[in-house]
Structures are given as structure tokens and as C-alpha cells.
């Protein structure tokens, strides 16, 4: 039963990490163009280096 004191915080922490990642993705507008994002991965334009901002 002592394991619970570790396991419960761990499971909650992992869940919270997922939630934070979701909120970050939503905030940085990554759900605005799902179809475009699915296609962009096929383009090799920025394969060597990331697109400069």
C-alpha cells in the first residue's frame, strides 16, 4: 500500500503533463489547419534546417 504514495502522484503528474502539452498546443494555434499540417510533412522544403522566423 505504501507504493500508492508514489504511484498516485506519478499518474497524476503524467496526466497533468499531457494536459499542459495540450493546452500549449492549443494556445500556439496548432489546431488551426489540420489538413495543411498533414500535407506539410510531405514537403522536403525545410528538411535540412528549420524555417527561420
Amino acid at each position, binding site marked *: *500500500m505504501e507504493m*500508492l504514495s508514489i504511484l*498516485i502522484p506519478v*499518474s*497524476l503528474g503524467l*496526466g*497533468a503533463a*499531457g*494536459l499542459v502539452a*495540450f*493546452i500549449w498546443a*492549443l494556445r500556439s494555434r496548432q*489546431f*488551426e*489547419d*489540420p*489538413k*495543411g499540417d498533414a*500535407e*506539410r*510533412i*510531405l*514537403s522536403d*522544403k525545410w528538411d535540412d534546417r528549420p524555417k527561420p522566423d
Partner: protein
Amino acid sequence: MADLTASGFSACPACDAAPLAQRLADRAEVAQGTVILSLPTAHCATCITDVETALTAHPGVRNARVNLTLRRVTVDAPGLAADDLIPVLAGVGYEAHELDPDALSATTADRQGRDLLMRIGVSGFAMMNIMILSVAVWSGAESATRDLFHWISGAIALPTVFFAGQPFFRSAWAAIRVGRLGMDVPISLALILASAISVYETMESGHHAYFDAAAMLCFFLLIGRYLDHRTRAIARSAAAELTALEVPRAALLLDGAEQTVPVASLRPGDLIRIRPGARVPADGQIVEGRSEIDRALLTGETLPVLAQPGQMLSAGEVNLTGPLTLRVTAAGRDSSLARLTALVEAAEAARGRYTSLAERASRAYSPSVHLMALCSFAGWIWATGDLRLAVNIAAAVLIVTCPCALGLAVPAVATAASGRLFRRGLLIKDGTALERLAEVDTVVFDKTGTLTLGRPTLVSADPLPTDLRPVARALAQASAHPLSLALAAALTDEPADLSEVTEHPGFGVSARWQGRLVRLGRADWLGVADHEDRPTSATWLAVEGQTPVRLEFTDELRPGAADCVARLRKAGLRVVLMSGDRPAAVADLAARLGIDDHRAAVDPQGKEAMVADLAAQGARVLMVGDGLNDTAALARAHSSISPASALDAARVASDMVLTGSDLVPVAEAVALARLATRRIRQNFAISIAYNIVAVPLAVAGMVTPLIAALAMSLSSITVTLNALRLRD
């Protein structure tokens, strides 16, 4: 929420018929120097790269980003206009149109969608974590362990319900304040009661806590809410795009210089220039110039009308041949477009408000749920005198009956159906449009611009002697008149060598050919008598010393028109053709499409009266039309569709817009609407069936949190899967 979002379209189509003034009033914040272009042909990864590379390589462009979902590109280019960028895209093979950023105030809708998504994410996280703990409790955790798990669940659930439940609390509060019981009142009650009783049970170290149920309720109901929102947002942004395609500008003459200004800023007394091919932006009197005017969108007439100085023009007419200078007599809300306002408003009021299936269901649902919860509470108090037990059972009844499935039943079907129609080229603008379309038994079509393309084609080149064909082609090429364009397109001969080619706006084209005078134009200009009762339009070719030749044109059928009419008739619907055009032209088209019931020379009031008449006889009318003369009839009909080429006012008055040029989706939409309505009814049946099993258990006090969770998730999933069967 429903009322709020729908009002963008249907509350006042007449307001939009009256031009554009208010469009400028509610301008969205658009960054300076940003140009938005619509890319109707973009569809793949290569398209994205091509467009972005071409645009960023253009001097002055800072950044360009394609949104493939919306088929748009946003260009950050201070100092550049759409006219500079469209040729760049045309150069790499992409069709692009300017979008009016003011009409695309989609940002607010996006924010609402993101807000809902965030709440779904939070409640999903909470639901899953609580469920892990709940499984332990269900599998037999005892005393201190159970209490600890309940406390942790509560610590997660309470903030979640507080945050994720806000949309429900807000709309429930709004409903209560005006004395109504919406769907959201029992939902909010269930959420609050479940949380409160669970906290109490946890403190008393009880066996059952409903924290998982509260989080799950939020999660499923929010999904329904989000689907509903997204269907509307997609339809709205596409409809806004259609509106944004017509950037309302006029060429104002100031001290002899031409200046492009927004139509809304025109004042009576202003002088404006109307180029051939342009739409008249405001009512006015011709000061200078001669031309022909196409009034098809206002009256349904296919024959062009002569225009000369002194004559009055109405906004919405199209100038065909020569440039005209117009003195504005009435602009904006005073113009003749606005005169239709009263007519359309009256028609809308006469149609009455439609009560959707979902509204009818929620009207029956809310009171019965409250009553059931109250009865079980009272019954258990009377039977046992145990307040804690009675409250627990009342809460269980509320949780079990909570309309997860009911909340998903309609939006899930609507999302699937409207997605399928959208891919086929039909845009749904109104939430209840599908249901109304499903009830339709009579279809009324307009002729010009709806069943036909409103574009003339040469019937046959046979009357034209072979040696005159090059002459006819050369003359036709000299003018931008629709009949000339059609003639030039129909002939394939090498154009003859002409000299002294002059266009006589309003009459025709003349030139010299081998020393002889040749003319192409109106019968009265050439001095010959025409037969006005023929179903076709005509132009004449006169060569000095020879008898003039009559060239007949007919209005080209819209693709799929015959197929669409045949399918509708096969589905058992009555098809009627109603037009403002001449009887001969209407009868000819009706015969070609096999429509027995046709009426010609009907004015706008007549059209509306005819639709009202059909409705009075018990028919449910679907009106399909594109012109201003159809606007009142569109608003009056039980359901309405207009093609994308229609005037703004007609599109706004109708429930659905056809985005492609093919008419077949109209017939498919009727079939799909019937299927979708059947699915919605099935979904209601499914969720009622679940309740029939679960409610007696709850009232009998036999529902545990485990049973509640099972019933809730199973019914929601079944309903969603049933809706997904609609996808193609």
C-alpha cells in the same frame, strides 16, 4: 448559443439586401498590410510549397502562410494589394481571388472553438484520472483507502466541474432568468448536485461518490457542444468567404479623376463610372454613355435592355457594352435593393419560426426529468424518512437521465451530414436547414441563373453562310457583349481582316470588309423586324448588299439540371418552374427538362405569393433561386437553396448555398436530409431506450456509480457511431 450564432445569417436577410453599410460598421480588426486570398484549387503539399515560395519570392512580401483547411493564404505584405499578388499566383498556375478581410471576422468564432476545446481537454484529463481511482473503488477498496481515493477524486473533480461546466452554468442561468427550462438547467443541476453529494458522502466516509460521473458528464456534453459549434463555424466561415468574394467598390469620379471607394461611402449626387461588365453599385441616372443593361438578377429577363443618357438604373443591374457615367440618386439603405426589405421581412415573418427536433425533445425532456427526480426524492423520504438516502437517489436519477446521448444525438448527425454535403458542394448555413429540407414535397425552381447558367450560347451556326463566318467572328471579337462572346466562342474560323471597326454601345459593332459595310447587332439598329415571341435571344449580321442573317442564342442549361429535375421527380417530389422571363422562353426550357408545371412573367411579389399559396395548400416548398426577384420567395419558402453566383441578398435569404456550378447536389441533399433526420430520430430512440432501462433502476435506488458510468458512456458511444454511418 444557437440563437446567437444563427443571427449572423437569418435574422435579417433584408438588411444585407440593403447594401453593405453595416458591413463597414462592424469591421473586424485586421492587421494593416495583410492580404487574404482564396485559393479554390489548392489541395496538396506541392500546392502549399508552390504558393508560399512564389509569394515570398515576390519583392515586398514579408511572409505568406497557406491554410489548406480553409483554402486561403494570408500574406503579410505592407504596401502591396491583392491585384499585385493575384498575377504572381496565376503565374505559377493557381487561381486566386481577393477576400474582403472585413467580411471575414472569423476570429471570434475561432476563440470560441478554442475555448471549448480547452474545456474538453481539461475534463478529459480529469475524467481519465478519476476513472483510474474509481476502478480501484469499484473493485473493492475499503475504508481509509477508499476515502483517500474519494478525496483525491474530489480534488480533481471540483475544479474541473467549476471550469469545464461554465458553458452549461451560464446558459442555464440565462434560461432561468427569463423563466424557461432549457436542456442546460437539468445538466447544471446534475453537475452541482452530484458534486455536492459526493463531497458530503466523502466526508461521511460513504460508499458511493459520483465524482467520475460529474467529470464524464462534462466531457461528453462538451463534445456535443463542440461538434455543434464547429459545424456552424465551418458553414459560417465559408458563407463569409462567399460574401467576402464580392469586394464592394465603386469608381468615383472626382474632378474628372477616377478613384476607387467603398460602395458604402457613396452619397446621392456623386458621379460614378461603370465599366462594361461591372455591376451597378447604386441607383442613379445615366449622365453620359450608351450601353446595354442585363437585368437578369433583378427581374429574370434574359434579353439585354438599351441604356442611354437620362435613363434610371437600379443597383444590381450589370452594364454590358459601353462605359457609363452615372449620377447617384440613392445609395445604401435608400436604394432600390432596400425596397425589397419590407417584402423579405414580411415573408420571413409569415414563414414563422421552425421548432427543431432537438428543441421539441428538450421541451419534453427538462420538465419530465425534474419531475422524476423530485418524485423519487419525495417517495423515498415518505418511505424511509432518510434525507441522505433520498438526496442520493434523486442525484442518481438526474445523473442517469442526463442527456449525454441526447446532447450528442443531433450535433453528431449534423456534423456528419453537413460534412458530406460540403464535400459535394453544398453549404448549410442554418442549424435547422437539414430538418426542414427533409420535409419538403414541392420544389420550385427559378429559371435564369438557376436552371440555366444565365449565359447565352449559339443555337446553330447553320444560318450563317460559310464565307461570312470569318466576318462574324472578327466582328464578335470586337465586343465584350455576352452575345458577341458566345458567337466568337462558337465559331472556329480564322477572323477576317476588317477595317474601321467601331463599337456602337447599345447597338452593336460595325466595320468595313472588302470595302463593304458590315454590321452585327440589334434588329432595330439594322432596320429589320424581329420575331419577339421566339424562345431565344437573337442578334443580326448585316452585310451591305445581302439579306441580314438572324443568329439565335439560347441560355445554356446549368450542368446537372436535367439530372437533378429527373431525380427529384423520381423521389416523388412535385417540380415547378417559375420565372420572370417571357412565356416562350420559359415554356421552351420546361419542355426540355420535362417540367409540366411552369409559370412565366412572374414579378417578385408574384413569386412570393405563389410560394405562400402552395404553402397554404399544405405543400412544403423548397425554393431554388438566385435573383433579387427570388429573394422574398426564398425567405418565404419552407427551405431554400441558392447558387454561389447569386446576389448577396439571395444567398443571405436562403438556408443553403450551392458552391459548385452543378445542380445535382440539390437532389442529393434532399435524399441525405431525409436520411439524416431518420438518423436523428434513431438516436433519440437509442437514448430513450437507455433511459427506460436506467431510470427505473435509479428510482429504485439500485444505481451505483459504476452503472451510471457504464450507461452514460455506452449510450454516448452508440449514438456517435450511429451518426458516423452517414459519412461517405
